[in-house]
């Protein structure tokens, strides 16, 4: 039997079955669209409540307060080869009474090391410390003669988790906050983050959701190129549907490489950051969940929706795709490594499903409906409406996320920028969003 005859016999069967499959995909598209819009609505209500509660208790009162918990920021810069001064300057200029910045760097990276030595007049220090967590030996400890809050560790550590553990070992304060090299914090970042620990003594973790941008105050968005704007909107879409939306119903898995704060005692009890984990912060959070639940202790780990940190955008689409793939891989690794806890914490697995399998369903649906339209199994009008509805659902979702961010967190509205983002939210569905969806499936 040759190929033509096989096709001849298969096509009628396909044509008969395709309409039902198309209707199934339509139902899924409709269901996903409604669920996402509901999640945005839920996020809106919660966000309004959050902003109001912060206003009524007036957390800003704590800015110069002696009663705020001090924080140890840890910057694992072991793989950084360029100058670190811009970031260190950003981290040392935060509006917060008492904190220290521990930079873990490798003196073999001459440029990065020289920038620190020159910029901050580092002095070698014989600092005794307790090696509570596993890390490579610290070659030497340096303190800055210019700013006593800065501590620099020279370490030949290759792993980010090891660098973070070294920072935890030397830290003096009860809250640990890893900051990654491509992050920039807003001036009130620590105040908002640490206030959660002060207001709730059961709090062990506060995660944040890094916005995309190169300005710490978020008002320089106009200068951002189109690709950066697209990344910004993609990030907001993920925040207000998947992450914040699920967090509101008790499910939350942090993004890897974002700014977060841990209670040091919880970090030490759980054995610190793991060398084997691809996303050490998310992995540690799941282990803390596991430990707390096992010990039946009251605790709280949540997401701070405020725009307190910005991640530098990728310059090229290839970089965006690589970063998305890395994110997916890290999420997979985190859930695989903590299967037991992931099954106890509702939503860890579901987040992965929503961010990995829904894109697959979307693309598969589009392909099947187009094929059905071409084969004549469904009318062309149905095909066009299906595709249009997909685009419109996506656009409305992005536009709502952008407007919600504008309403809740932007201090100054730039209508020109907002208009550009609005149009981009629609146009994105034909380019950027398709590419990112493919990337998510491919990863």
């Amino acid at each position, binding site marked *: 039997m040759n190929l033509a005859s096989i096709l001849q016999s298969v096509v009628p069967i396909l044509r008969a079955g395709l*309409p039902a499959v198309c*209707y199934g995909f*339509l139902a899924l598209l409709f269901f996903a669209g409604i669920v996402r819009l509901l999640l945005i609505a839920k996020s809106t209500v919660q966000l309004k*409540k959050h*902003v*109001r*509660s912060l*206003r*009524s*208790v*007036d957390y800003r*009162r*704590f800015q110069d*307060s*002696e*009663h*705020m*918990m001090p924080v140890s920021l840890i910057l694992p810069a072991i793989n950084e080869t360029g100058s670190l001064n811009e970031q260190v300057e950003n981290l040392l200029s935060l509006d917060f009474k008492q904190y220290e910045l521990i930079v873990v760097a490798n003196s073999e990276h001459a440029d990065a090391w020289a920038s620190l030595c020159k910029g901050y*007049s580092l*002095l070698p*220090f*014989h*600092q*005794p*410390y*307790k090696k509570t967590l596993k890390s490579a030996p610290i070659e030497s400890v340096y*303190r800055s*003669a*210019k700013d*006593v809050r800065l501590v620099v560790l020279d370490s030949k550590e290759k792993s980010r988790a090891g660098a973070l553990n070294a920072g935890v070992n030397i830290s003096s304060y009860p809250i640990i906050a890893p900051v990654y090299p491509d992050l920039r914090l807003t001036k009130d970042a620590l105040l908002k983050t640490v206030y959660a620990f*002060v*207001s*709730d*003594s059961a709090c062990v973790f506060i995660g944040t959701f890094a916005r995309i941008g190169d300005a710490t105050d978020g008002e320089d968005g106009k200068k951002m190129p189109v690709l950066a704007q697209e990344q910004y909107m993609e990030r907001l879409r993920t925040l207000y549907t998947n992450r914040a939306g699920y967090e509101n119903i008790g499910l939350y898995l942090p993004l890897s490489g974002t700014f977060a704060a841990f209670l040091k005692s919880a970090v030490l009890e759980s054995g610190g950051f793991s060398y084997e984990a691809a996303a050490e912060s998310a992995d540690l959070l799941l282990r803390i969940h596991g430990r707390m639940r096992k010990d039946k202790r009251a605790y709280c780990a949540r997401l701070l929706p405020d725009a307190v940190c910005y991640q530098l955008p990728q310059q090229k689409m290839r970089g965006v795709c690589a970063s998305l793939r890395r994110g997916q891989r890290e999420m997979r690794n985190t859930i695989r490594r903590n299967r037991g806890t992931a099954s106890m914490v509702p939503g860890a697995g579901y987040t992965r499903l929503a961010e990995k399998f829904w894109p697959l369903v979307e693309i598969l649906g589009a392909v099947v409906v187009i094929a059905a339209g071409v084969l004549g199994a*469904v009318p062309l*009008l*149905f095909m066009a*409406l*299906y595709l*249009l*509805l997909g685009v*419109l*659902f996506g*656009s*409305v979702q992005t*536009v709502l996320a952008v*407007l919600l961010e*504008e*309403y*809740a967190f*932007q*201090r*100054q*509205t730039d*209508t*020109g920028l*907002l*208009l550009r983002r*609005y*149009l981009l939210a629609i146009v994105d569905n034909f380019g950027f969003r398709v590419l990112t969806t493919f990337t998510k499936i491919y990863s």
Partner: protein
Amino acid sequence: MRHNTADQLIRAAGWRRETVYLSILQSLLGGLTIALGALLVVGFFLLLMLHLTRSVDNRKVQKMREQLLCLISGAAEAKRMKNHIYEVVNPDGKLDQLSDIHGICTARGLIAMAETAEELSGASLEKLQKEAGGEWYGEYLRRLLDGVDEEAIALVIKLIGALQLKNYTPDVVTQIYCCRTTAQMQHVGMLTLCMLGAERDIVALCRDHTIASLLSFRTLEEIFSIYTGDLKKLCRKLITSASDPYIRRTCIKTIGEQGYDDLGDLVLPHLIQGHINTRIDSARTLGQIHFEMAYPHLVAGASDPRWEMRAVIATALGVFDERENEETLIKLLCDREWWVRYRAAESLTKATDTRALMERVEQTGDRFAAEMMRFALDQAALMKGEAA
């Protein structure tokens, strides 16, 4: 029966049932597409209008633009409201009273009023107090206080504190009692009572065993730190009467921080007996106020089984004559716990003859103690700016 009739009609028209269902589905899809599309188009035109009218020099247009902008931006709405409030309190302002401000009787209005109150002083603040405490706005506040929306009540209470509206004090106390399981209400309520300096009400609330504090220790500390009345008198009353141990601890810490040395005799019993955290705070406070009567108890605390206590004792002893305590502090410098060694070293850095001190530390033969002492001395030099 109805189903059969529909089938008969479809057959009579010569259509296939699938075709009819498909056309209905397509109509629904079309409708939904048009609705979503229209939503996007309306949004686009609104934004376009906002953008194009930004430099139009017409008051009416700018007012409309401002109102539209308030739909998109919370900050713009708050700014608009604040500007109007300033217009009311400013003698040369164009508005006379709060009732002239559109939207002032909303949650956003309450927030804007409270934030503006914190920025005002003198005659402007008095004007705002008079307006907010007046009949028209007072009726709105009263309506909210009688309602069930806890978030709105919290905002009203915040405003009462910010504007020092003392005639509402009983309402604040009532709300704390009514919402005794809500941490936010306790926080805002206590904060307001402290802002109002309502000593009698605070003491009565703290004495009540049925009101368990839901607030964290640090939150309580911060709340009491903004008390506008006589803080010393409040501490004296609460340290002996508060039912909540957190509140007693807050008083103990405040006594140390504020240096109320004549209240040391009220703190001392807490060092001798009580929960470990209270004993730790008492030790710290008695050190801070240099309370001589506590000295033997502090020295005895140097061999406490809890390292947290030994660490605080090491700091507290540093306040007393260092020559007298050197032996105890060097013993603590050789402690097995890192933090105790660190605190003891910090206290020892106050010694005048650091060389002799280092020799004594090295004589102990404890490498870790010597390392810690060197580190503390280096750090002290760094803090003084001598290292640079």
